[in-house]
């Protein structure tokens, strides 16, 4: 007997999938989610354990190619300047994200109008602000209202800011002297008990899973509630393709279960929430006679315009013991001093800076970011100079869209289910290189003013593709965009994409808060238009 189709099938149980699932379940929709990863228990996270700095370079690497867990799919990244990073699990890449939660700025939505390059978004900051405020409450954001980097007004984060630490205080004082902007970083990490979760303990191991449950991820913040309202979450489910009918509507997904059997999940509406690489891969896989170039791809833009935020790390060394191995790995403070375009600098757009902890002694000896290895008689001095005595500015530069930066399907590599793996083609642009050079110089100035006696730079980190954006952009014109302003496919009226694929431009900030806000906005639209929604017969 044929299965009744769910009202909505979501592919991916990460940030955006969790937000949409909860909103729709609250509105009474029947929701099914297919997630290729599994649930993680907090006891599995290695932060409190002695092997933390060992396993973070393998089993808990942020790169699926390094980690190579059974639920990961490999990436062919031979043609990419930056390695994409992600995690497959309930909660998605939030399990391993830092937790930084800045919003995009008003100018980020108007890059074409302001700077004559790239494109404008089909919505504004003011339109998205109410959704930022709602998702801040859902995830439990700690921060301080009143930041003059944003328009005044609106609702404050629900929790006070996390500590800025000794390093953050030093740099804040320096910026006060220089007249440069700084502000306590908003983080999706609890500074106080909230929603049944415990607060942060400043362990500094956020990127290998939060053992306290203080860092937000949808396995904690959304899925238990959505499941309580009737949503069904299937783990170990690897989606092979979406199916569609002769009326141009998607009918569900073909997927492979954890025993290797192929199954079909019918649905009235499908929502893709599999990140900008996984979603593009799935749309490109869903070819048939009517869609020879992939589903929802009449524009030819599916997979194109991949943006990953070229990243530089600038580390200052101080005489003072800053205990810089502790503190939230989401950032302590941020600066938007040089975020906005100044064409005299020789590039457009800018970067957000975030000050972060610096790991333990193993990272001091074998630096994974800026710095060198020193062996022999000077080794001990080198480690002592770095351990606990460093402050790192992480610089996220705005990554302008380029159609040649793209995700395609590998003709030679597949996962063990035989599904072609994504092939990543990505070059860092000249604008990005100039942008990073400028910001590295300014961040070095910041650290020297703060008292650093030396500054070390990692100019373009290879393993820095945390932010996967742009491969199914929004827009008002179906010829030049994949999705409409509500994240719905122009081509397939019962198909939504709610992850970072939808981004028109990248902004220069950590994007998860914007992904979550956009997903909630799309879900609200689904609820509001539920009676007008076209569905398969």
């Amino acid at each position, binding site marked *: 007997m044929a299965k009744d189709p769910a009202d909505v099938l979501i592919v991916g149980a990460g940030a955006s999938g969790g937000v949409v699932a909860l909103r729709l379940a609250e509105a009474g929709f029947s929701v099914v989610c297919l997630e290729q990863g599994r649930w993680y228990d907090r006891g599995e996270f290695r932060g409190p354990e*002695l*092997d933390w700095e*060992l*396993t973070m370079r*393998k*089993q808990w690497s942020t790169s699926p190619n390094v980690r*190579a*867990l*059974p639920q990961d*799919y*490999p990436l062919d990244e031979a043609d990419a300047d930056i390695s994409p990073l992600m995690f497959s699990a309930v909660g998605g890449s939030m399990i391993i994200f830092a937790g930084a939660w800045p919003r995009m700025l*008003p*100018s980020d939505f*108007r890059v074409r109008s*302001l700077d004559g390059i790239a494109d404008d978004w089909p919505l504004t*900051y003011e339109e998205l602000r109410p959704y930022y405020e709602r998702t801040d409450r*859902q995830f*439990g954001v700690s921060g*301080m*209202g*009143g930041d*003059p980097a944003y*328009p005044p007004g609106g609702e*404050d984060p629900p929790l*006070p800011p996390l*500590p*800025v630490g000794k390093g*953050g205080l030093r740099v804040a004082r320096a910026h006060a002297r220089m007249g440069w*902007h700084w*502000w*306590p970083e908003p983080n999706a990490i609890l*500074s*106080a*008990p*909230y*929603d049944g979760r415990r607060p942060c*303990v400043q*362990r*500094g191991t956020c990127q290998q899973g939060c053992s306290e449950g203080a860092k937000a991820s949808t396995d904690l913040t959304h899925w238990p509630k959505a499941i309580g309202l009737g949503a069904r979450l299937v783990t*170990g489910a*690897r989606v092979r393709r979406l199916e569609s009918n002769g009326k141009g509507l998607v009918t569900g997904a073909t997927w*492979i*279960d*954890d025993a290797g059997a192929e199954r079909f999940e019918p649905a009235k509406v499908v929502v893709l929430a599999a990140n900008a690489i996984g979603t593009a891969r799935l749309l490109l896989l869903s070819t048939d006679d009517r869609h020879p170039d992939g589903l929802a791809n009449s524009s030819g833009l599916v997979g194109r315009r991949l943006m990953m935020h070229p990243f530089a790390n600038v580390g200052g060394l101080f005489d003072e013991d800053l205990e810089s*191995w*502790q503190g939230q790995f989401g950032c302590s403070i941020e600066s938007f001093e040089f*975020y*906005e375009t100044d064409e005299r600098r020789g590039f457009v757009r800018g970067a957000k800076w975030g000050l972060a902890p610096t790991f*333990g*002694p*193993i990272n001091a*000896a*074998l630096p994974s970011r800026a710095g060198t290895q020193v*062996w022999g*008689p000077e*080794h001990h*001095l080198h480690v002592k100079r770095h351990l606990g005595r460093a402050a790192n500015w992480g610089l996220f530069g705005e990554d302008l869209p380029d159609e040649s930066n793209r995700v395609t399907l590998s003709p030679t590599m597949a*996962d*063990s289910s035989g599904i072609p*793996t994504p092939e990543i083609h990505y070059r860092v642009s000249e604008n990005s290189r100039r942008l990073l050079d400028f910001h590295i110089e300014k961040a070095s100035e910041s650290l020297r003013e703060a008292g650093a006696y030396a500054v070390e730079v990692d100019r373009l980190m290879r393993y820095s593709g945390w932010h996967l954006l742009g491969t199914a952009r929004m827009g008002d014109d179906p010829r030049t965009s994949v999705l409409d302003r509500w994240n719905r496919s122009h081509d397939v009226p019962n198909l939504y994409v709610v992850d970072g694929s939808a981004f028109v431009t990248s902004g220069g900030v950590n994007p998860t808060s914007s992904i979550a806000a956009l997903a909630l906005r799309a879900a609200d639209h689904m609820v509001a238009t539920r009676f007008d929604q076209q569905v398969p017969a």
Partner: protein
Amino acid sequence: MTADPIARPIAVPPAIPAATPASAETDPVAPLDPAARAVLAAVADHLIPAGHGMPSAATVVGDTRLRFVLAARPDLLQPLLAALRPGLGDGSPGGRLAALEAEGDHLAALQQVVVFAYYTDRDVRERLGYPGQMAKTLYSWKVPDFIEEGLIDQVLARGAVWRDPATGRRADVPASAYEAHDAGPAADRRGEPS
């Protein structure tokens, strides 16, 4: 972590299980014969000699530490054995390391094993003053130093730093429009996220 039975990806190395306690049958240091251990000790001392109040790596990197490292990172065993194989280089630790420059994965494994073993030793960490990644209690009701020192006030006094899309210029918003605030004492707002 438990291996997921879902189909394993190809073209990348197989999954590595999390650290498990060593047993007599699965002792991870068993593949290291006396010759390999001697080479490892010599290289360890070359990389991290005694000095500046710290012990040499050879005195620290014994079976206990190696067992810990290879249990947590079994993927390192084979490249480590390759890096320790007889006949590599001119017989000196420096010569071996120089020869390994052409074998990046083997060199990296050797360095990692030495560093991982050394810096997970209790005495070494105590000498460095590193207690590990500790759990600390947050007192979110305390007024932060940056408020007490007036550092936030200085940021606010400068006014808006965002670019207004309507004009293309820095927003014309008076500094008085901004006021720093958080949501107040934590006890007032436990558990209402919606």
